């Protein structure tokens, strides 16, 4: 416990000082924070509950659109804003901007949670690959439909309110960095708290054998919906922050981007090791470094690399980094290993 406390303190200190140590990477660090949040939320579903979803992008995109719409709609007519596109006929004052952002983020987190609760009963009754494909359909349908709605910009996109004139570009970077860092801390604390309760055991029981869990008297549907709602809450929050960070929302390329973000969250969680607390964090960090390297030096080939990466990770590395470490050093994970048994197994191999 004492060792853990030092570790958390070190990470917290690093997180707070990071934008000042690496001022050039502020945006990258903010994106990393958002990615970690997404990987953590996916892990609640895919890792702990065993419900592999492609559809959490739905909540992410919803949060993005909602946050921006609320931020604009609180002070100006939304339709005229989106119609004017890039030209700024309306300007937020700093107070309006921050107020709008605060309310927008709350809405962006709460509404997807409610949506998840509403659709949860019908969708979470599906099992296995039917669930996976159904959520894939949900995500794509949301993107296609929002691309046809006029008031949020339809095909031409939605420009989020620009950062007000306080301190210039530096302040903007710091603001969004600390916002997303706070989101990570919040998500991690919440997830860690959840994982130490009976709720996590129930989710694991659902993953391992849902019928048996039901036979043991657990109301699986209730817990599945709660699990999905928790996912949706943080996904929406991450979406809202990301919308402000990117500054421009497009229906299929930014918000409901199943081909990028929707796959990234699955990949990050699997790469780090699904069903572990630290796996998604490590996976997201490794993935982000790899991605940025590839996106910068091999521009144009990034999707080819992404496709190959998915196939390689899924086929050869499904246990992830944490799974590999666990197999290598089981003592560190609190598993008692019989030395003789281990030697016998090594000899067998």
């Amino acid at each position: 416990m004492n060792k853990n406390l030092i570790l958390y303190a070190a990470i917290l200190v690093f997180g707070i000082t990071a934008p000042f140590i690496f001022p050039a990477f502020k945006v990258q660090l903010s994106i990393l924070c958002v990615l970690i949040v997404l990987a953590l939320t996916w892990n609640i579903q895919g890792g702990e509950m065993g419900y592999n979803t492609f559809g959490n992008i739905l909540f992410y995109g919803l949060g993005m659109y909602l946050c921006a719409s609320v931020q604009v709609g609180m002070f100006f007519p939304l339709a005229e804003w989106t119609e004017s596109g890039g030209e700024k006929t309306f300007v937020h004052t700093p107070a309006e901007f921050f107020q709008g952002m605060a309310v927008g983020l709350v809405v962006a987190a709460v509404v997807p949670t409610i949506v998840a609760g509403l659709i949860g009963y019908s969708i979470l009754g599906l099992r296995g690959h039917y669930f996976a494909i159904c959520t894939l359909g949900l995500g794509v349908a949301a993107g296609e439909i929002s691309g046809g709605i006029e008031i949020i910009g339809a095909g031409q996109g939605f420009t989020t309110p620009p950062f007000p004139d306080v301190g210039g570009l530096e302040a903007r970077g710091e603001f969004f960095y600390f916002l997303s860092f706070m989101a990570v801390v919040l998500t991690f604390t919440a997830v860690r708290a959840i994982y130490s309760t009976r709720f996590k055991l129930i989710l694991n029981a659902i993953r391992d054998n849902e019928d048996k869990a039901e036979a043991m008297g657990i109301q699986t549907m209730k817990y599945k919906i709660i699990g999905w709602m928790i996912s949706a809450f943080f996904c929406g929050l991450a979406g809202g922050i990301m919308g402000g960070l990117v500054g421009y929302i497009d229906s299929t390329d930014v918000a409901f981007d199943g081909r990028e973000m929707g796959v990234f969250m699955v990949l990050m969680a699997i790469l780090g090791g699904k069903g572990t607390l630290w796996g998604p964090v490590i996976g997201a960090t490794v993935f982000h470094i790899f991605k940025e390297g590839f996106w910068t030096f091999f521009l144009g080939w990034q999707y080819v690399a992404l496709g190959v990466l998915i196939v390689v990770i899924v086929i050869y590395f499904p246990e992830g980094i944490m799974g590999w470490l666990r197999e290598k050093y089981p003592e560190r994970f609190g598993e008692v290993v019989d030395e003789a048994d281990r030697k016998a197994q090594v000899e067998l191999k």
Partner: protein
Amino acid sequence: MDFMVFQYPMISVQACLDGVLLGILFALIAYGMALQWGVMNIINIAQGDLVILGGYIAYFMYLYGIHPAWGVIVAPIIMYFVGVGLYKLVINKVVDRDLFISILATFGISILFMQLMNFAFGADVVLANSGYGTTFLFESAVVLPNSKIFSAFISILFAICLVIYMKKSKLGRAIRATAQNARAAKILGVDTEKVYAATFGINAALCGVAGALISITFTIHPYMGLPYTIRSFMIVIVAGLGNLPGVALSGMGLGVFEEFADYILGTEFRIGAVFLLLVLILVYRRFKLSRKREYLK
């Protein structure tokens, strides 16, 4: 929203005929999906991208001055080897594993194919002009391109050939035996590895035929694959595995639905309507089964 389609009955007739002809094509792709799902127990998200790849083969023949209709013969031959290659490289490692692994792995292949096709063929929407002209029905109120009729005819022809092949030939019997019980088939001397490779190859070849026909009748684009996957998945779950008349009928039904969605909601919502229909069908089946305390397996 536009309800013209109900005020002028001829538009409805047009939509129905278009939908049926389109649906036969969907059914052909879905048949390939049902085949590999039943035999190998994998769901191939890259199905639609194989279709598009087949379409580009026909398109390139058209570019080099060969009539694109020959693509119906060339594309399946090339695609068969693409399919077998894909099986040897990737698919054979996911056959015995969890279904989600196969979904994710083929999703990766799908992204890879999309981007490679984008590099190789460019991001333009293309079509191979067959020059077949059009047929006018009911005093020119209904317009049917002959290429659509041709493609429906060829699809039916291929489907019938395949059914006969599966019934009569040795490989066909081996495939059906493996689908019933892979382990028993192995004990009785069927080389299941070979059967799997052939199944995936046949599936890819069917996709090739469908793609060639789509490039003649409609348009193709590197990123248009996923909707075809979703359509074929939808048709298979509505019809069930190994129910060929069901596949044909639900394919046509889907085609008609799409044409009407196109008229009523507008073209920009067409793909969205398809994906939404998938969700609705799955939810409907979930409630239907949950009454008997069962679930989709």
